[in-house]
C-alpha cells in the first residue's frame, strides 16, 4: 500500500470494476467503497456468483442466446413457441428486450454482433453458419431481421437477405420510423424521413 492511496485489495477491485462499460475511475471507486460496507455474507455471495459465472452460463446451441450451460435456452426449449418464425438479432440483450413486448411468439437467432469490417467483424465471426443450418432444416417459414438502422445494421440485413434469397423462407425486416406512443413534435428530421418513406395505408 502506498502511503496516501487505498489498500492494495481496494485498488485491485477498482481496477477490475473500471473495466466494465460505462464505469470510470470515480464510479469504480464509489462502487468499491460501497462494497466495503457490505456484510461478509453478501460479499461471499457476489464472489461465488462471479466465480461460477463461466461454468453456469453458456450459449444456446440452437440460437446462440444466453442459456444455462449446455442446455437449450428457455425459448428454444419451449413447445408453445412458433418454431417456424425466427427473429434474427445482434445480441442477447435484444432478445430480452423484444421478449418484454410479449408480442413475438416465434424463436430467435443471435448473431453475436453485426457486420462491421472496419472493426474486423466479418461473417466468419458471426453466428451465421448455424443460421444456414437451421434454414436448411426446412422448418423455417419466415425470418424477421431486427437490426438497428445504422450502416452496420442495414448492411447486415441486406447481407442476410441476399444469403437466403434462394431459399423458400419469407424474409421481412422491422419497420423503422416514429417510436410508438411518442409525440411527432419531438421527432428528429431523420426519424420523420424514415417514417414518411415507410408510411402505410390507413
Amino acid at each position, binding site marked *: 500500500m502506498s502511503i496516501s492511496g487505498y489498500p492494495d485489495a481496494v485498488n485491485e477491485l477498482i481496477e477490475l470494476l473500471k473495466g466494465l462499460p460505462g464505469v470510470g475511475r470515480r464510479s469504480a471507486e464509489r462502487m468499491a467503497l460501497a462494497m466495503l460496507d457490505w456484510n461478509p455474507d453478501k460479499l461471499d455471495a457476489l464472489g461465488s456468483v462471479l466465480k461460477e459465472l463461466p461454468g453456469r452460463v453458456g450459449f444456446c446451441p440452437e440460437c446462440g442466446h444466453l442459456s444455462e450451460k449446455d442446455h437449450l435456452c428457455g425459448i428454444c426449449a419451449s413447445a408453445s413457441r412458433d418454431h417456424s418464425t425466427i427473429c434474427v438479432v445482434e445480441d442477447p440483450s435484444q432478445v430480452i428486450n423484444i421478449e418484454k413486448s410479449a408480442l413475438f411468439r416465434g424463436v430467435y437467432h443471435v448473431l453475436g454482433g453485426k457486420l462491421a*469490417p*472496419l472493426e474486423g467483424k466479418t461473417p466468419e465471426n458471426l453466428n451465421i453458419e448455424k443460421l444456414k443450418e437451421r434454414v436448411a432444416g426446412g422448418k423455417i417459414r419466415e425470418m424477421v431481421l431486427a437490426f438497428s438502422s445504422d450502416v452496420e445494421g442495414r448492411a447486415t440485413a*441486406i447481407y442476410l437477405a*441476399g444469403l437466403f434469397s434462394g431459399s423458400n423462407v419469407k424474409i421481412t425486416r422491422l419497420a423503422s420510423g416514429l417510436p410508438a406512443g411518442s409525440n411527432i413534435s419531438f421527432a*428528429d*428530421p*431523420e426519424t420523420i424521413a424514415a417514417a414518411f418513406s415507410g408510411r402505410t395505408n390507413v
Partner: protein
Amino acid sequence: MAFFLLTFMIKRIKLKDFRNYKHLDIETGNPVNILTGANGQGKTNLLEAVFFVSMLRSFRTSRINDIKNIGSGGFYAAMEVMTGKWAKMLEVEYYGGRKLKIDNAPVVKASEFIREIRTVAFSPDDATIVNGNSSLRRRFLDMFISIMLPGYMSALHVYVTALKSRNTVLKTHGSNKAMLEAYEPMLAESALFIVKQREYHLRLLCENINLILKGFYDSDTVFDIKYKTDVPADLPLVMRKFSNERKKDILRGFTGFGPQLDEIDFYLNGSMMRNYASTGQCRLISLCLKMAEVNILAADSSVDPANIVVLIDDVTGELDEKSRNTFFKIISKAGQAFFTFTEKPSDDFFDNSIEYKVNNGKI
C-alpha cells in the same frame, strides 16, 4: 448602423484550453465585434472557437488535436446564443471523446447541434478553395450544404461509413460478393442524394457569385462552375454500375466511382482558375464564394437571418473602397459579425462596433 436586427446571436463565449486560451469568459453583446491585437495573440483562435461551436469543425485544421492548448488533455468551448426570444447555452467538450450539450442536456447527433447557428468564416486560406485540388472544393461545398440542410451531413456520414466498409471488404473479402453487395444499396441511395444536392447548391452559388461580381466590376466578367460526377443518374443505373465495376474494384482494392471523386472546377472568363487564375483573382473569387454563402443563407426561408454569424479574418484589407462597400453590404445581412484587425479600421461600418483587444490568449 449597418445592422438593424435587435437580437444578435452570440452573447457570451467561454473557452478552456482552446488553442492559446487557457481560460476565457467574455460577453459579446454587440452585432459588430472587432478583435484587435498584434499577430500571434489569438485573434483567429477566437474566430476558430466560434466556428467550432457552431459547426463542430475547424476552418483551419481537420485534426482535433491541433486545437487543444499544448500540454492539456483536451478543450472546452461554449457559447450562449440567442435563438428566437431566449438564450441557449451550447457546449462542446473534447476530453477523450466529444460531448455536446444544449442547455445542459446532452445532444447525441451532431446534425442537431449544428442547426442552432449558421456560421460563415472568411479566412485568408480561402484562396486554396479556388486554386487547390477538387477535394478542397468538395470539402467547402459539403460544409456549406450541411449548414443549409442538416440531413446532408447524415447522408455524408452514411456514405463515408459504407464506403470505408466496402473498401475494407474489397481488400479482405474481395471474393465475397454478398458482402460487397450489402453496402451497395446504401451507397447508391446516399450518393444520388449527395450528387443532387451538390448540383443544386453549386448552381445557386454560381448564380450568386455572378451577381456579386457585377457589383464589383461593371464589366462583363463571367464566372462559371463545372461539376463532373461519375455517379449515374438514377438508382437502377448506379446499382448496375456497382455490379459492372465489381471485378475492377476488387483488383484495385477500393470503390472506383462515387461522389468522393467528384470534380468541381471554377472558371473565370472561360479559363480554369485552378490552372490559370492569378493570386488576386483567386482571393477575390474565394471572397465572392463566401459572400454568396451569406446571400443564400439569408435568402433561405428556413433560416432566420439573425442566426447567421460571419467571421472575417483579415480579408478586407486588399479590397478597394467600392468592393469594401459591396462586401459590408452583403455581410450586413447576417445577425452578427466578428472581425480581426491589427488596428480598428476607419470605415463607417465600424462606427458602432465593440473592440476587444487580444493579448497573448487574454482579452
